[in-house]
């Protein structure tokens, strides 16, 4: 069972309270992008064995979208952070580094 702490309301939300939103920080291609680039933007997603940055919505709680850094192998959650960023914040990256160093 996955538990993520919503960065907006601070509650430890069970997976069943959340709705997954796929890979985070996907940058829209275009408007001048060629078809291959746009297809990649639409359909190609990372599927890492390890740390994955992903979007979640606290759909049965405060209703807000947020980001989470989760390890797909160990299910360790390195942290959650608000959705209004285009890349993972430094403290999340630090937490990942720290977990790797152990």
């Amino acid at each position, binding site marked *: 069972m996955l538990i993520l702490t919503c960065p*907006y309301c601070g509650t430890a*939300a*069970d997976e069943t*309270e959340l709705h997954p939103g796929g890979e985070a920080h996907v940058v829209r291609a275009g408007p001048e992008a060629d078809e291959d680039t746009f297809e990649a933007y639409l359909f190609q997603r990372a599927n890492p064995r390890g740390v994955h940055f992903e979007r979640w919505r606290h759909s049965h*709680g405060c209703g807000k979208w947020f980001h989470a850094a989760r390890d797909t192998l160990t299910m360790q959650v390195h942290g959650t952070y608000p959705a209004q960023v285009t890349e993972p914040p430094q403290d999340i990256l630090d937490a990942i580094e720290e977990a790797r160093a152990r």
Partner: protein
Amino acid sequence: MFDATSHPARPALEGATFDGLVRVEAAGLTGMITLRGDVDAIGMPVADVTGLDVPDTLGITGDGVRALAWMSPDEMMLFCDYAEAEELAASLAGSLEGEHALVVNVSDARAAFRLSGPEHRLREVLAKLTPADVRPEALPPGMIRRSRLAQVAGAFWLDDAGDLRVICFRSVADYVWALLTGAARPGSEVDHFRDVRM
């Protein structure tokens, strides 16, 4: 054409009560007004009109008659008497004129329940239905928690009288009634919260 205004409002599960581990009651018609907008902008006007404090994150404030609940970073729910909801919503909308805000009387779109009994039993009934942490330290009085009740969305809090209040969408009121009364069925004690007996 169906004209809602020409029919008297009927509450969900009118007058229903159930006695089991706890007493479950359909709370009847309850005024509920959704307030949406930046809390910095709408907080003061709402506090002025209602006389209630603006709740902190996950908080609910009340004066015994009305209550103001945090719903999300940009949403609050005002609970009041059903009869005054329409007028109150209009006066709130007036005081928020010019702000980027939304005031809607959602009284008829929600259903409310009241559960009363020993606190450890109330928490036990709730814990059977929701993944939320309902231990006293995680759900103290004065806190509202939005979560799910089995398959549907709901919100719950402990009021000043020590009763457990539950709200859900009216369209699933029958389902939530069945959940609550099922979880409170005599003989289904789990005694998980026996240490919080007070």
